């Protein structure tokens, strides 16, 4: 008694657990807080307990390095790990734009992957097919939004149920 939607568009576990994701989960990149961080933020999913701490070094408007800590499922942790790699070297503006694209991809099953080049982050596109796991994928990006908003002196308006806060700046 599968839904019609699923019959037309079968959802496979391989869509969620891509090799890239499992690789980042087993061998996380940039794990740990950065000594040279200029802003740090954290967030968690109250419903499942996943948590991410993020530290970002911003030099002359460029994210020179990111580090993360926390615990949770493979999606939440690999999303954070991939983010730290993909955002390093970007301007604040570019990082924000990417964050926006990734969050659209995570929440919209119909997101057009050809429209933007997201590199390895495209591996996260399958998350949108697993509604209960979307928040897992979003967590790191909500924390990044919080950190970048703080760096530019703005406040975050977010209607998701993922609480985030700046921990040092």
């Amino acid at each position, binding site marked *: *008694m*599968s839904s019609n939607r*699923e019959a037309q568009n079968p*959802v496979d*576990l391989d869509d*969620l*657990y891509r090799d890239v994701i*499992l690789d980042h989960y*087993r061998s996380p990149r940039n794990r740990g807080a950065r000594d040279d961080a200029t802003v740090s933020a954290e967030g968690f999913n109250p*419903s*499942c*307990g*996943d948590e991410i701490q993020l530290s970002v070094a911003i030099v002359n408007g460029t994210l020179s390095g990111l580090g993360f800590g926390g*615990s*949770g*499922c*493979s*999606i939440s942790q690999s999303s954070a790990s991939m983010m730290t790699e993909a955002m390093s070297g970007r301007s604040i503006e570019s990082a924000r734009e990417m964050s926006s694209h990734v969050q659209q991809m995570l929440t919209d099953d119909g997101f057009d992957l050809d429209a933007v080049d997201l590199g390895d982050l495209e591996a996260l596109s399958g998350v949108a097919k*697993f509604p*209960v*796991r979307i928040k*897992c994928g979003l967590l790191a990006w909500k924390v990044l939004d919080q950190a970048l908003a703080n760096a530019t002196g703005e406040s975050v308006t977010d209607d998701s149920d993922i609480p985030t806060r700046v921990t040092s700046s």
Partner: protein
Amino acid sequence: MTTATPLDVAAIRAQFPILSREVHGQPLVYLDNAATTQKPQSVIDALSGYYSTMNANIHRGLHTLAEEATSAYEGVRSQVAEFVGASSHREVVFTRNTTESLNLLAYTLGTRLRPGDEIVLSAAEHHSNLVPWQLVTQRSGAVLRFIELNDDQQIDVDTARAAINANTRIVSIVHMSNVLGSIAPVAEIAEMARSVGATMIVDAAQSAPHIPVNVNELGADYVAFSAHKMLGPTGVGVLWGRQELLADLDPFLGGGEMISVVTREESSWAALPHKFEAGTPNIADVIAFGAALNFLNEVGMDAVAAHDAELTHYAVEQLSRLEGLDIYGPADPVDRSAVIAFNYRDIHSHDIATILDRSGIAVRAGHHCAQPLMRTLGVPATARASFYLYNERSEVDALVDGLLEAGERFGFERGA
């Protein structure tokens, strides 16, 4: 354990329509019974039958439908009283759920507490038997104390003795843990509570569905549980209390149904148990709960307990064979029932749950509304399989197979 199960599980399964559905193209294997159980056709029929044939508001109506609905609703109260060995139907209060039953107690008993008074809970409480008492301490100045787990992750008489003292006013503990599956020695702890003059409350949300619960044998003053965890519909909780104690409590919620005489300035209260049932109650679901109790009575709670214990024993045995699988709770299956919380390899429980779901297997993952217990156990989360009278060994085997598949996906060899 090779004892043959006394239940005709195939015949029981046939009465639960949902058990014949598929999930992701696989037969449903429902192992999330500690969250809520499935409903037999008789419960579903009772619910729709009420709306089809006798829907009316109860107690004050003078017409036939109101009379029939009142009789059916009050009849279930008597059934509940009999099910838990209460001495009167007046000792049975219907609430929305266990959480509301416990909040009722925390609110009403909490007004009597003074700074320095102690409320004793256990390390294994569900948030529903923790947060209401935290609110009480903020209002009253009373403090919380906790019965710790022993080395076998159980609440025992010794750990209870260390927490209960002359300042204890309330002892409120979980009978069967929704994470550890362990069953607390409630009768002995109730004796300790009585010896210091404390009120004894038992959260029986997990025990009432799985083992015979007799309120007098427990020695409790109050017992709370929910219909939906024992084949009944959602939206119905029970608070049992000793009649003389309930009579002495102030009301929790005010409104219609719970009054005797109302003037502009003041009111007097209706007789028990109506004093605690303000407003139109959940008539339909209470009546359907009656069908659930009939079902359990026909099977027999001793048989349910034996079946659940046997299946739990088998599951512990099978799961223990998996390398890298940690089971929480008492080591000896004899000390537990129906609930098995575990972690497998370094795979997060949410990933386990997602992967099992694709094989049609429903388990719980996360903190199970017991975050302090998770910290005590030193884990952020666990997966949890929980059984009931319609589950069978082949479903445990499916769980084991699903876990091996999860392991493969995360890079572990199946043969391990």
